[in-house]
């Protein structure tokens, strides 16, 4: 802004900037640096060794599997929900949108609790599941479910305002030109939302891989079997294996930074093709 009347005096600008940056340094930058420092405290060799441990590799594998299931399912859900909401008018639409936002208002611990109440030993379906030898809670399916719960809004929340903004004219035009529903969706709608979709998937994935609270409640913490990377961090930390804990944490931190980078890149290059709505 070049307007003279709005220019704060230099000392004000510098001190406010310094104050803001100090705050951010203390609360954001330093924690990041701490992860790396602690992980390398005993040298690169120890770092590499802790990442190669069997339980660690199992945790990494499980995290990837859970994400590989949860993210595509939530992607499909997000596409369906946003198509239904943006391209049609129907009663109760506002309720549906609020419902989709629900996981954001619920503590992750409660997100896990509800599945324990449903499928746990004393849960609603506990007996039925035991009789059939099916384990959901304290097993991988429970982890997948809890992860889906906390991450399913991300894609939908990005696509809904975006598709509403884009309107229905292009789809109607495609229909008048003879295209069917699927063809219209693939040729007209999807290309229009591809960057928003990628953005939503990125956020969904980051949260799916990093979720702790909900998964912790549901998992049973069985090393090598039902431990995801965040849970493994906790276990190692509680055993005072700080290097190990921070080593795994560093992988997750790298994931976070890559996500941030990709997110910023998308926001920078495709600003108009992302939803104008507030993002979480």
């Amino acid at each position, binding site marked *: 802004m070049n307007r003279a009347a709005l220019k704060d005096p230099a000392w004000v600008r510098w001190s406010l900037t310094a104050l803001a940056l100090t705050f951010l340094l203390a609360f954001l930058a330093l924690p990041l640096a701490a992860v790396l420092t602690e992980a390398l405290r005993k040298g690169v060799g120890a770092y590499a060794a802790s990442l190669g441990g069997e339980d660690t590799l199992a945790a990494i594998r499980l995290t990837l599997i859970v994400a590989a299931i949860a993210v595509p399912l939530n992607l499909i859900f997000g596409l369906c929900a946003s198509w239904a909401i943006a391209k049609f008018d129907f009663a109760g639409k506002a309720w549906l949108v609020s419902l989709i936002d629900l996981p954001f208002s619920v503590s992750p611990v409660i997100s896990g609790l509800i599945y324990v109440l449903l499928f746990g030993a004393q849960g609603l379906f506990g007996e039925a599941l035991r009789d059939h030898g099916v384990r959901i809670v304290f097993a991988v399916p429970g982890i997948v479910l809890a992860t889906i719960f906390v991450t399913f809004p991300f894609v939908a929340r990005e696509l809904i305002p975006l598709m509403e903004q884009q309107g229905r004219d292009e789809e109607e035009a495609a229909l*008048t030109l003879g*295209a069917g529903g699927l063809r219209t969706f693939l040729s007209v709608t999807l290309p229009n939302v591809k960057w928003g979709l990628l953005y939503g998937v990125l956020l969904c994935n980051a949260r799916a891989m990093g979720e702790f609270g909900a998964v912790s409640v549901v998992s049973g913490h069985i090393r090598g079997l039902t431990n995801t990377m965040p849970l493994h961090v906790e276990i190692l930390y509680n055993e005072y294996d700080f290097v190990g804990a921070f080593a795994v944490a560093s992988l997750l931190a790298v994931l976070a930074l890559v996500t941030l980078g990709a997110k910023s890149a998308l926001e920078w290059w495709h600003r108009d093709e992302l939803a104008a709505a507030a993002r979480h």
Partner: protein
Amino acid sequence: MIHVEHLTKRFGAFTALDDVSLAVPDGRLVALLGPSGSGKTTLLRILAGLDHPDAGSVHLDGLDATAVKTRDRRVGFVFQHYALFRHMSVTENVAFGLNVRKGPGKPAKAEIARRVGTLLDLVQLGGLAGRYPSQLSGGQRQRVALARALAVEPRLLLLDEPFGALDAQVRKDLRRWLRQLHDEMGLTSVFVTHDQEEALELADEVVVMSKGRIEQIGSPAEIYDNPATPFVFQFLGNANRLEASIAGGVARVGHWRVAAPGIPDGPGVAFIRPHEIDVDLADPVAAIRHQVVLGPVVRLDLALADGTAVEAAIDRETHARLALRPGQPVGLTARRIRIFAENEV
């Protein structure tokens, strides 16, 4: 031939179309003219299959189209805001309708390219084939939208306020150009507009609509010269609206007496067009309150003896010849006065 019979459409409590029936002959360029809320766009969208009527039927070339889905109707639709596919180039946009055809109906790639080329030349956008919609002006986008609709060789072309979003000059040029195109192609076309000048200039036939009903159908000259209802009279062109009282088939309007056959006794409304009032200096009945020069015409704001305001439009020469000044008393002759009963208004 398009036959629309007893079409009704409601949106909640609002009635958009109220028992509308219409026949559009082949090869004509028809305008649906009316203010917002008149139902014209709803009617157009129902013809395209983009909306379903609550009652009534639509027949296209003798076949009941009401059950036919949009994609199977072979109707070309040009949207008000163009609805170009923003991620496709001009060529891809125009070729879309041909590319989505399945099986034997789909032409070979070379054939599609040829057709697209021909159409782009037709709409005079030959050099812009590789551009994207965001790189085009409003007028160019509209022409791409038209080319795209024509690519599928529709049997009917529908246009929704095609020039509404464009500048005045561009609008004028495109109007002329659309008329030429229509004359060349002979395709049955229906377009929606709220601009009476556009309707009168372009259309073979004008359908005047108001509040979900058809007020009048006729050629531009006919609806201007012989408006069937007060609404049409007031919507097209300027009109003076005066009180009249009818007794025994004769209407008294100010100092004028007009034959009003078939209109019941009682109060009524009279309409006189400003340019159908002649001004002279004999037998004064009104005084000039104010006069404004509007190009080739002078508008006179007159007041009758009882204070009623009347507007007249006379040409500059007459005005100069009579040396009219504000305050001057003048006599008025109305070449045509149109009478309506009170309950028709």
